[in-house]
């Protein structure tokens, strides 16, 4: 279903609010990852406020789609998207990484029960998503209209266990599995192609019998269409390779791998929020 102009405007405003939450929670926590969560804000917003079949008021709903965040270190975006869609109070976001918080530094489903799984150690989300898709097929066969979404980082693809899961999903032709790779080209030690080259990523997935799409991860229409196509693909799992800009939304953080694994200081956070709230200085901020 194509997005109307109005819907796109809604989503982009929502994404900005979510980015603000990310900055606020990271400043408050004093540690955590900045670039990844900001870079994935547009995709998470599209998923949680448009594409995903879910009911935040009834998180146990059996027919819901499942979301697996494999690269658990970008959990500020997951927590923010969940809070803004009503799973828990937005105020709670400020407890991130604090003692006793439900929002553990890396997601833990025993602490926050609305999560489908715990994650953090890389290379382990995709296999779980494959397991869910297999279980779903055993129960409902090819007709199941429940989808399993799995987010992967690009650097994470260094982990060999991913390729075991990619092989199995291709072999099993899991059409109810949709993977979204955050292709932001950075990892902790530098740029992905310097650390451990991944290209040609499209050919790699295709050769494992996956349907592959490559999109601009900041274009809401692109994101929504790619998900619709992935749902329609028959007899193959789908991967959406989303080209994203790490740190997207705050000029100071964009495209710089040094923002992968650190939070903004209070002052950096203040400047970032100012930029987000004024659309980069184009309008007068309401909080000024």
């Amino acid at each position, binding site marked *: 279903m194509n997005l109307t102009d109005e819907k796109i405007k809604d989503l982009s405003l929502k994404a900005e609010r979510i980015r603000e939450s990310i900055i606020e929670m990271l400043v408050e926590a004093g540690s955590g990852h900045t670039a990844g969560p900001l870079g994935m804000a547009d995709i998470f917003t599209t998923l949680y406020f448009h594409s995903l079949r879910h009911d935040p008021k009834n998180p146990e709903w059996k027919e819901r789609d499942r979301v697996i965040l494999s690269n658990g270190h970008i959990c500020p975006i997951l927590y923010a998207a969940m809070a803004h869609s009503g799973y828990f109070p937005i105020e709670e976001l400020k407890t991130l990484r604090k003692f006793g918080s439900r929002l553990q530094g890396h997601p833990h489903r025993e602490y926050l029960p609305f999560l489908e*799984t715990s994650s953090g150690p890389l290379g382990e989300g995709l296999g779980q998503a494959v*397991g*869910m*898709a*297999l*279980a779903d097929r*055993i129960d409902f066969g090819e007709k199941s209209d429940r989808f399993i979404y799995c987010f992967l980082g690009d650097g994470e693809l260094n982990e060999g266990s991913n390729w075991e*899961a990619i092989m199995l999903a291709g072999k099993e032709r899991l059409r109810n599995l949709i993977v979204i790779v955050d292709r932001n080209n950075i990892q902790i030690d530098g740029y992905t192609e310097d650390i451990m080259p991944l290209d040609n990523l499209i050919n790699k997935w295709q050769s494992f019998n996956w349907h592959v799409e490559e999109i601009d991860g900041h274009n809401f229409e692109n994101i929504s269409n790619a998900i619709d196509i992935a749902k329609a693909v028959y007899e193959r799992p789908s991967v959406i390779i989303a080209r994203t800009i790490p740190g997207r939304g705050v000029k100071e953080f964009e495209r710089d791998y040094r923002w992968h694994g650190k939070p903004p200081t209070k002052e950096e956070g203040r400047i970032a929020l100012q930029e987000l709230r004024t659309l980069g200085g184009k309008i007068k901020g309401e909080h000024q």
Partner: protein
Amino acid sequence: MLNPQLRLNTNLFDPNVEQVPTRKGFGEGLREAGIRNDNVVALCSDLTESTQMNLFKEKFENRFIEMGIAEQNMAVVASGMAAMGKIPFMSSYAMFSPGRNWEQIRTTIAYNNQKVIIVGSHAGVSVGPDGGTHQAIEDIALMRVIPNMTVIYPADTVEAKKATMAAVYNKTPVYIRLAREKSPVITTPETPFEIGKAQLMFIPELGLAQVGIIATGPLLARALFAAKELEKRGVRVKVLSLTTIKPLDTNAILALAQEAKAIVTVEEHQIAGGMGSAVAEYLAKVYPVHMEFVGVDDAFGQSGTQDELIAHYNMDTPNIIKACEKVIDRKSKIYQ
């Protein structure tokens, strides 16, 4: 004498006692569990016949997932299936699962508290000719340190079948350790079995025990042979079968320590970190007694037959007897 209440195999001390590998009981138990519960599914890493999962696969083709040689992915996929309400059994050789995929088991199965039953077959040096690369003697240690994990090491094929069927209804993830080679059938279908409950298999005909043997896995048979021999020599022995290593049946262990004041643990595993360590950790705190540990003493395995290797690593009947004599001797020096 064998504890008459447990209805053990009366032929146990016959040289021609029936011998069956524990993995066989697992295969039968899994098939039976599959019949009784539709949610049971099975995953295997290219060792379907070796681990006896073929019995399940033949009956439930659509509930069996062939993973290929990919143990890490097997653990993770099993976790995902459990999250959707399935009860997955995953099997391979213990060296590779939980040997290779330990962190996947920790994070995706135990940390999530997803009930997956991890079946490590071909454990111990008794695998034999394959040699040290394939002889997992560290896996009890690996699994018992993980929170939420239940650790079960059946002593014979009958118990392996019961443990497999009971694991379906356990509340937490389970590790079941199995052996490749044949071992004596000790129990019968009438012998009681409960996860977490140790059983006194051998008791003195009269009086209190001078030594308590705590054994786990198929070496229980050799522990019973040792007890029988000691009984002949006039030594009063109790043998506790500790099939569930975690959670530990502390009541049974404490009662035995209080009575015998000398304990020998027997397991086909590294002494460091194994069942003996678990018993010692507990007793050191509540009721310290002299202990001897029968197990592999900080060494790797090698090629050989089961009997050759069990003897070489000092885990055979004569060595269990020796350990009992040693610990009784140490105790008597203190209590005389």
